[in-house]
């Protein structure tokens, strides 16, 4: 059948929760009714990345990029564009008034991106193995099984310089060598898809958009290290990713790309999925393995490292989703090609989930060495509502904040570490002038305190104490000595905690202290929160000179604490005020003062 047009509809979790599924069904119905079924192919794809403007519908070969599509727009796109050849102008993405009908490759959001991990996301139908195969899928496996020895594969990985994308950045080839060189009857391969950082969704999107890339890479690893069984540990909160992965595993088994005697090579390998219950600590590799074994997800001291003694005491290679997804490309294009991309110490690309106060929230992939400024201002389109950039948080609860003066730092493992943050799995949360750094630190610490497994005391007790101090400071009850106390406990936790969770939990506090100690002091000494987000330290008052007595604020006040006669200045009863800020937002005359 010869299709003349292709309609790609994003069906990642973000767009799907905005009804992209309904859009798909309605378009399918319209296309059938209009007799276009043999001419137009509708494809459900993975994430396009520009999640801010989803649901996204892309029409090829016209290269029309529709954003913010609603179910009722489906009929119009079919009727006007697909039938009559007239793109629906008001739905086409434009980043500036003057730039209408821009080509997709020229959209600033995509210009600085380079896609290796996300190569198939938004391009193929993840539920159809044939489309993966068409894009050179399982070709790397072919090459590995029939043209390469395990040592060749490891050599290629070594040349590529690929480092673990889960956060720590350990060279991938080393893990593989350890496991390969251990004598053992049974070995395992594990994919860590337990993505838990707030605001991070790289792994979920990769699996949703291209599940076969994980299967292919794990099989290659099994062949390399001599394992015959793989497990994907993924959290149960990712139903769509799980469904797509299950489907992909089934299809691969049916075709014999998993199972016994793969492609007649004599090599056996199979993969099973293990669901996590959503405990953050299970992203730590030893806790993850304990959870797969059916035990409570708690970390254990290393060494021995899982590469030597992992799942059920057997040698186990455990890599993150993004690491896996890079591997087929490295084998096909060569380690040298991969090593050309990136910086001296960090090769290849990195996927980031860009969120927070940035215009283009979304999923992006850039070469290592791209600067934070390029990511936030060129790709991200700058700060929302024209506000001022304050800091960016990388590495989630294990990372730290990076302030404006370091925006031109090229992103790589070492640079971020020098700045007191970490690469982490790839969450980037952008903060503006309205964000209070102590509040941010408190938010992350609350998360890690909640997620601490409680096994070791530095993490269990230290986290709780630090949280208590931060809480006092945000309520205006802090003392100057608290700053030193925070640093002391933080350093102790870093040194004495058992696993990565506890060792990194103080990072958000220590890094905000490093760059924004003046804000801590302001909270403590002046009892003031300049960003205006610490409720206890903010007071709303009405300037009688500016207030015309329209009564709008009184009407919008949820606790009726604003009173006054019509056309006369109003007043706020501080004893009742809950500091919701409604009055400040609705006043058209700038009469409500926040301070």
């Amino acid at each position, binding site marked *: 059948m*010869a*299709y*003349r*047009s*292709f309609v*790609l509809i994003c069906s990642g979790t973000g767009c799907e929760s905005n009804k992209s599924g309904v859009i798909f069904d309605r378009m399918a119905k319209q296309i059938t009714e209009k007799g276009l079924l043999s*001419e137009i192919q509708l494809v459900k794809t993975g994430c396009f990345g520009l999640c801010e403007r989803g649901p996204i519908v892309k029409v*090829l*070969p*016209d*290269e029309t990029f529709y954003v913010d599509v609603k179910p009722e727009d489906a009929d119009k796109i079919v009727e006007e564009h697909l*039938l*009559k*050849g*007239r793109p629906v102008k008001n739905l086409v993405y434009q980043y500036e008034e003057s730039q209408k009908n821009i080509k997709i*490759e020229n959209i600033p959001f995509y210009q600085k991106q380079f896609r290796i991990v996300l190569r198939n996301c938004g*391009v*193929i139908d993840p539920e159809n193995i*044939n*489309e993966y*195969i*068409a*894009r*050179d*899928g*399982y*070709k790397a496996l*072919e090459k590995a099984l*029939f043209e390469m020895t395990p040592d060749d594969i490891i050599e290629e990985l070594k040349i590529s310089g690929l480092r673990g994308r889960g956060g720590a950045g350990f060279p991938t080839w080393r893990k593989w060598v350890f496991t390969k060189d251990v004598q053992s009857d049974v070995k395992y391969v594990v994919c860590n898809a337990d993505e838990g950082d707030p605001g991070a969704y790289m792994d979920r999107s990769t699996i949703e958009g291209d599940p076969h890339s994980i299967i292919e890479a794990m099989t290659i690893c099994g062949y390399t290290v001599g394992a015959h069984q793989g497990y994907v540990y993924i959290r149960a909160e990712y139903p769509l990713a799980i469904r797509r992965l299950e489907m992909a595993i089934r*299809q691969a088994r*049916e*075709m*014999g*790309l998993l*199972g016994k005697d793969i*492609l*007649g090579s004599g090599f056996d390998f199979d993969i099973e999925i293990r669901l996590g219950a959503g405990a953050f600590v299970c992203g730590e590799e030893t806790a993850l393995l304990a959870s797969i074994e059916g035990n409570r997800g708690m970390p254990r001291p290393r060494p021995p490292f899982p590469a030597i003694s992992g799942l059920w005491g057997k040698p186990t290679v455990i890599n993150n989703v993004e690491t896996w997804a890079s591997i087929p490309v490295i084998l096909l294009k060569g380690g040298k090609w991969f090593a050309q991309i990136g910086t001296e110490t960090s090769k290849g690309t990195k996927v980031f989930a860009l969120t927070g106060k940035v215009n283009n929230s979304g999923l992006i992939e850039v070469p290592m060495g791209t600067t934070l400024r390029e990511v936030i201002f060129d790709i991200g389109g700058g700060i929302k509502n024209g506000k001022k950039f304050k800091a960016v948080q990388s590495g989630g609860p294990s990372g730290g904040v990076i302030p404006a003066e370091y925006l031109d730092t090229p992103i790589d493992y070492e640079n971020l570490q020098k700045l007191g943050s970490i690469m982490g799995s790839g969450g980037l949360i952008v903060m503006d002038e309205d964000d209070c750094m102590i509040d941010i630190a408190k938010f992350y610490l609350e998360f890690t305190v909640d997620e601490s497994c409680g096994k070791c005391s530095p993490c269990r007790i230290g986290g709780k104490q630090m949280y208590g101090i931060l809480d006092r400071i945000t309520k205006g009850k802090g003392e100057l000595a608290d700053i030193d106390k925070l640093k002391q406990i933080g350093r102790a936790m870093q040194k004495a905690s058992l696993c990565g969770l506890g060792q990194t939990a103080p990072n958000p506090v220590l890094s905000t202290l490093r760059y924004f100690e003046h804000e801590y002091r302001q909270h403590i000494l002046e009892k003031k929160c300049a960003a205006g987000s610490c409720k206890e330290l903010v007071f709303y008052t009405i300037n009688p000179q500016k207030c015309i007595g329209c009564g709008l604020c009184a009407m919008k006040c949820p606790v009726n604490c604003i009173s006054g006669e019509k056309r006369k200045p109003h007043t706020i009863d501080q004893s009742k005020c809950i500091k919701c800020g409604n009055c400040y937002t609705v006043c058209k005359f700038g009469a409500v003062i926040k301070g």
Partner: protein
Amino acid sequence: MAKITLEELRRLREQTKADIEKREVEGKETLVIVGMGTCGIAAGARETLKAFVETIEKLGLKDVVVKQTGCMGYCYVEPTVEVVMPDMPRTIYGKVDADVARKIVEDHIVHKKLVSEHVMDKPAADIMK
């Protein structure tokens, strides 16, 4: 689906590759644009478009993109088609039915020869025969 052999996997990849490449626009230099306004559709532009797509597939031309556009203004000679490619003048053809479409693919795109009797927008005289 039965288990496949290495050869079958390779064959499957070649087959499916052609399908998926049609979605890609990058690097393709030849453009066939079919006018699909109400007048064009009424005059049979859908059939024309189909003929283009099918002929291009039949001849295995990978460098060609078929797009549609609205009315080009030559409503008296619909369906109208514009062909843009390297080494050839931008040409607008009129009264292009399925047969003419096939001829355009074979003559204009493959052999770089204008289908003179259907040319609407005349390029420079020295190119015309």
